C-alpha cells in the first residue's frame, strides 16, 4: 500500500507541477492579456496550453485512483506537495526570489508529508489494527483504508 501511495502521489505532483508551469509559460507567451478574440487565438496557439490541459487531465485521473483507497483528509493535505515543487522550479526556471518564510513553509510541508508517511501503517500492522478494531467493535473505519488492508 505504501508503494501505491508513493507512486500515486509522485505522479500527482508531476501532473500538478506540469499544469502550473505550463500555465505560467502559456500566459507569458500570450502576454499582454486582453479581452479580444486575437488574445484567445494567441493563447490557443501556445503549445504550453496543451501541457496545462494534459497536466489537469492526468492529475484528475491520478487523484480519482488515489481516492479509491486513500482517506480524503490526509490525502488532500499530501496533495499540497505540489506547492514545494512549483516553488523550487519557479526559483530555478524563472529566477523568482524565495522569501525565508516561504523556504520555512516548504520545509514544514515536507516534514508534514514525512509524518503522514510514518502514520501510514505497514500492511502487516494494518491487518492487526483491523483485527483489534473488530475485536473491540470499534466505530466504522474508512472504507478506503479497510479496502487497502484487505487487498494485500
Amino acid at each position, binding site marked *: 500500500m505504501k508503494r501505491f501511495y508513493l507512486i500515486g502521489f509522485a505522479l500527482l505532483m508531476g501532473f500538478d507541477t506540469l499544469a502550473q508551469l505550463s500555465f505560467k509559460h502559456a500566459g507569458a507567451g500570450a502576454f499582454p492579456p486582453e479581452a479580444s478574440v486575437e488574445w484567445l487565438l494567441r493563447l490557443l496557439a501556445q503549445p504550453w496550453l496543451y501541457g496545462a490541459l494534459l497536466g489537469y487531465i492526468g492529475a484528475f485521473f491520478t487523484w480519482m485512483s488515489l481516492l479509491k483507497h486513500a482517506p480524503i483528509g490526509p490525502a*488532500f493535505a499530501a496533495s499540497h506537495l505540489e*506547492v514545494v515543487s512549483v516553488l523550487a522550479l519557479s526559483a530555478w526556471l524563472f529566477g523568482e526570489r524565495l522569501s525565508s518564510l516561504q523556504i520555512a*513553509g*516548504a*520545509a514544514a510541508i515536507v*516534514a508534514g508529508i514525512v*509524518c503522514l508517511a510514518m*502514520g501510514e501503517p505497514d500492511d502487516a500492522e494494518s491487518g492487526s489494527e483491523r483485527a483489534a478494531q473488530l475485536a473491540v467493535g470499534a466505530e466504522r473505519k474508512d472504507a478506503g483504508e479497510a479496502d487497502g488492508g484487505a487487498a494485500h
Partner: protein
Amino acid sequence: MNALVWSLWTATVLLDTGGQLAFKAAAGDPEAGDGLARWKHMLSRPWLWIGGACYVLEFLAWIAFLSLVPLGRGVLLGSINIVAIMLAGRWLFGEKLTPWRLAGMGLIGAGVAMVGAGA
C-alpha cells in the same frame, strides 16, 4: 476585506471542500468495481458530477477572488481547506485522526500558510 471578497472567499472554501468530498464519495464507493466498469459506475451516479460542478463554480469564484486580492492570499486559503477537509473526512467518512496524521496535516497546513504569507 469587503463583503464581496468575503463571500467569494467563503464560496471557494465551501466549493473546494464540497467538491473534494463528492470526489471521495465517488472514488471510494466499494460497489464501483475496477477499470472501465468503475468509470461507468461513477458516471452513472451523482457524486462525480456534483464534484465536477463544484470545481467549475469554484474556478469562476477563484478567478473573481484573485482579481481582487494578491496570489499569496490564494495560497494561504489552501491551508484553511486542509483543516476543513480533514474535519469533514472525520465526520462523514469516519477517518481516524491519529497523532501522526494530525501532526502531518498540521505541518502541511502551517507550511502552506507560510508559503502564502511569505509571497
